[in-house]
């Protein structure tokens, strides 16, 4: 998984939306269009997986000493 800095969810979705707009404009040469389509589908899958497979995230609390520790809100009795 060694690749360049991972894009944020927001950046990915923005990229996705841009590609759709580009393709829908119909001004992209076919080769580019296919390349972009493939890239977009990859991003869409990535976002989809990120959402669907998201286990409950581990939340943290900042301790007095500046360290972060896992935090779970105490359920109401």
């Amino acid at each position: 998984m060694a690749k360049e800095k991972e894009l944020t969810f927001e950046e990915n979705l923005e990229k996705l939306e841009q590609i759709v707009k580009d393709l829908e404009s119909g001004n992209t040469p076919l080769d580019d269009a296919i390349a972009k389509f493939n890239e977009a589908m990859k991003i869409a899958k990535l976002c989809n997986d990120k959402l669907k497979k998201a286990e409950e995230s581990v939340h943290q609390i900042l301790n007095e000493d500046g360290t972060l520790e896992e935090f779970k809100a105490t359920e109401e009795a």
Partner: protein
Amino acid sequence: MQDKYITVTQLTKYIKFRFDNDENLGHIFLRGEISNFKAHSRGHYYFTLKDETSRINAVMFSSSVSKCKFLPQDGMKVLVTGKVTVYEATGGYQIYVNTMTEDGIGNLYIAFEQLKEKLAKEGLFDPARKKTIPRYPETIGIITAPTGAAIRDILSTLKRRWPLARAILFPSLVQGASAAPDIIRQIKVASTYPLDLLIVGRGGGSIEDMWCFNDEMVARTLASCPIPTISAVGHEIDFTIADFVADLRAPTPTGAIEMGVPHQNDVLQLIEQIEKRLEKSIFHQLEVENEYLHQLTDRYILKNPLSMYEIKEQKFDHLLDRLSLGMGQLIDIRKARLAKSIDTYLFTHPERLYMEKEKELAHVLKTLQQQSTLTLEHFTNPYNQVLSKLETLNPLLTMKRGYSITRREGEVITSSKQVKKDDILDITLADGSITSKVV
């Protein structure tokens, strides 16, 4: 009988005596609202304390003023201690205030309004300076109490709506005197973390409980926080100062999550839509390109390559024909033009040109002659007119008709009164003069 009557001073002194010796009036605890407040230049305060139905004048001398911890204002509710006595000069009773403190909630509102106005003037609530809340925050900072409903609501709502986000709790006191400095400290700490969003808040409570969110320094720290902020103070009153300063105001901690993060289902749906649009547009493009390809391959030329040669042959012949035809036409045109020029009038009779010029010259000479006569008349006519005018005015002509000029030693005589007996007069006539003597 006169002894029944006392003076105003005596009466006033008596009343004052009664006031001053009254156990209750000597040390009174009074609650009221300030009005007509005036801070005298010498340091004393003069004002009126009132409630719904009554009022009393109040004086606070500078020695007591120096112990007062706030600047009183009209409308403030205060608790004062002091004594009630009579001011003899006006005959009015008034309270001399020893101590004055603000009276709870009434003053909180005033302080709130004052701070709100001040910060608004500084532009801290300006919509233009509000940061945009990111659409898909992934790391969310939360400043609130680590126990209690607020953090629990936030995390459970986050789990339901946007589970991929990670929360970092910056625990803080959210009520009491230490709350404000604690919140300020945690905002500053949170600012050093790579957060997409910072939520600052607490659950509902009394107005005093959440007063830390109306703290000026909390407001200023929040305003200068580089991370987009959401205020989430559960409360019944409309807004806290923090609400005005934050980039987004949520009515409750749960609301902060609802407003700050998208719902995962909406986002999944959005991605699905985008996928569909992607497929649709790429298929459409493929279709268009494919059709174009078919159009190209379907063309007659591609199906009958020999026909291309035939067409070229034919075209070549056609061009040759047009070329020879064109050349012939061009030569004919030039020839015709030459013949036409040779055939002209002058070429056939050159002497005519001389004759015509001679005729023209004669005409010009004639015109010149006529013109010069006219010009001469134009100049001589006015001259003749002047001459005849001069003639009619000539005195000699008048004298020819029998008039004469009479002079004495050169002076013209125009009246009989000018002469006396024995004067020698010269009379000039048209043809000479007579010397005569008056008799």
